[in-house]
């Protein structure tokens, strides 16, 4: 098992804030919109340096999506910022018609995704957003794993022409990826090469997968770990290549088991190479109030849950 270390923990939303600021410096067409959550989305640096390119829309997400779509007509690259819940479910029809169907170059940037939003509870903890967004034709869906990767993704999507859903979170998590990484949309990142089982993880679950991989190594199980930061388009080649070698797969995500990364992988494998698969995901449930760690434990999204899933899938090989 390749050794991963970290010296600090940071929130991925801060990676977004830093990336937005950089993207703004690189391209004058980058504009930002927010629905009354500037602090939560860490947009202050962008607003300070580019006040005329920032639009505060107030608590009116539907209007924000429509305005963003309109701003693309005139060559702007709008980044909309609010919580994942209000970025997707609340404005699904606006995204569907004015952004996705109209093929507008809007970057829908969604913080506080999943259970790790914590104490606010289930009204704010969306676990269905990946599914909602990946079902839209032409929508790119990205869920990076740490601060550095989120920052790199935020900068990279400005150079991609078309609608993007960028998902990140609130808690501080280990920073373990390269600060100077080149982010390629749709290109999986090989975290660890192994031969016994493939663990495919996205977002906050990538670090959990690394910790699981270390425990599995001690048990004599050689896990291959892949970071799928882009859920759509899926890097099918990387997944098939790995599964052909290992013969079984565990997917891990902070999302409902319905509609998430796991189902995308299952569809790929079912149609090309049927393979035993176990899902580390929320079991068709809403969340609740609690600390992020408590919630991840209660809903089965930790390194230990990945280890158990690997043990189950190995028996089915």
């Amino acid at each position, binding site marked *: 098992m390749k050794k991963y270390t970290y010296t600090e923990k940071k929130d991925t939303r801060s990676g977004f804030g830093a990336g937005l600021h950089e993207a703004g410096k690189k391209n004058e067409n980058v504009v930002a919109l927010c629905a009354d959550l500037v602090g939560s989305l860490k947009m202050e640096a962008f607003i300070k340096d580019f006040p005329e390119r920032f*639009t505060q829309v107030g608590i009116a997400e539907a209007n924000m999506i429509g*305005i963003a779509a*309109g701003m693309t007509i*005139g060559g702007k690259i709008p980044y909309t910022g609010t919580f994942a819940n209000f970025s997707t479910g609340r404005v699904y029809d606006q995204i*569907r018609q004015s952004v996705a169907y109209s093929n507008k170059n809007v970057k829908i940037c969604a913080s506080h995704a999943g259970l790790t939003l914590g104490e606010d509870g289930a009204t704010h903890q969306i676990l269905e957003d990946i599914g909602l967004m990946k079902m839209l034709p032409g929508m790119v869906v990205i869920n990076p794993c740490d601060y550095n990767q989120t920052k790199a993704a935020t900068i990279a999507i400005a150079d991609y022409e078309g609608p993007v859903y960028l998902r990140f979170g609130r808690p501080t998590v280990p920073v373990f990826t390269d600060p100077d990484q080149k982010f390629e949309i749709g290109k999986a990142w090989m975290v660890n090469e192994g031969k016994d089982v493939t663990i495919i993880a996205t977002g906050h679950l990538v670090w959990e997968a690394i910790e699981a991989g270390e425990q599995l190594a001690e048990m004599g199980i050689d896990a291959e770990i892949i970071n799928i930061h882009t859920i759509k388009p899926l890097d099918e080649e990387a997944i098939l290549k790995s599964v052909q070698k290992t013969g079984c797969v565990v997917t891990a995500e902070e999302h409902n088991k319905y509609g998430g990364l796991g189902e995308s992988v299952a569809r790929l494998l079912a149609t090309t190479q049927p393979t035993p698969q176990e899902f580390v995901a929320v079991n068709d449930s809403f969340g609740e109030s609690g600390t992020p760690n408590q919630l991840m434990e209660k809903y089965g999204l930790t390194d230990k849950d990945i280890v158990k899933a690997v043990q189950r899938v190995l028996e089915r090989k």
Partner: protein
Amino acid sequence: MKHTTEELEEIASQIRRDIVRMVHGCQSGHPGGSLGCADFFTALYFEVMHHSTDFTMDGKGEDLFFLSNGHISPVWYSTLARAGYFEASELATFRKLDSRLQGHPTTHEHLPGVRIASGSLGQGMSVAIGAALAKKLNNDKAIVFSLHGDGELQEGQNWEAAMFAPFNKVDNLICTVDFNGQQIDGPTEKVLSLDNLQAKFEAFGWHVIVSNGNSMEEIVKTLQYAVSLTGKGKPILNLMSTQMGYGVDFMMGSHKWHGVAPNDEQLKLALDQLKETLGDY
């Protein structure tokens, strides 16, 4: 003026012929609102708006138009064709398989003149505001026009947009409301009253103009007046009364022709009332 009032009325008559023929041709679509707005579209595209039929999505330096109530696509498609965006013969493909003239307007099939999809109601005002903001950022002095149904204003997103535009001084925006008082289930007064729209928009901070949308002379003057009000710190709302089905007597003033196509006999009756001026497609 580029055209006399009579010339514009002749164009509007042809557009009305196109509308009933298109809707008859596919036996579906929305003739009522389309006919009611034929004069507005004619005035806008043939007299008031500075636009190029050499279509670009960004439309830099041009006035832009957004149709929020996308179901009246027949009047827009006919207007675009007659203005030169594409051949009038393509109107015969309306609502048919593999057509660029989808039931509701879309950019998906790359029809020149259309910059956003519409049909799911209530989204166009936000989009028009966004396009207007982009023009300001680009130091582009052109104007953004939009059209909205009155029943459509029952959608809440409109009021988010209505609150935003005056507060942010989006004063390069002229939104017109087609105030025909009808919606699918009956008169708006009975379904869900819009009450005093003028007072509502004025309370939100808009400069509101009240006009008659079935008098060519008045529409041209109203839109030109609206243009003269741009750049003065307020968005402009043109509250335009029309008669649904205007120009075809048996379709006028009733919600019954909102989304119903005429049969062969009704088509003939309608065309007898509408002078062919530019040649049928």
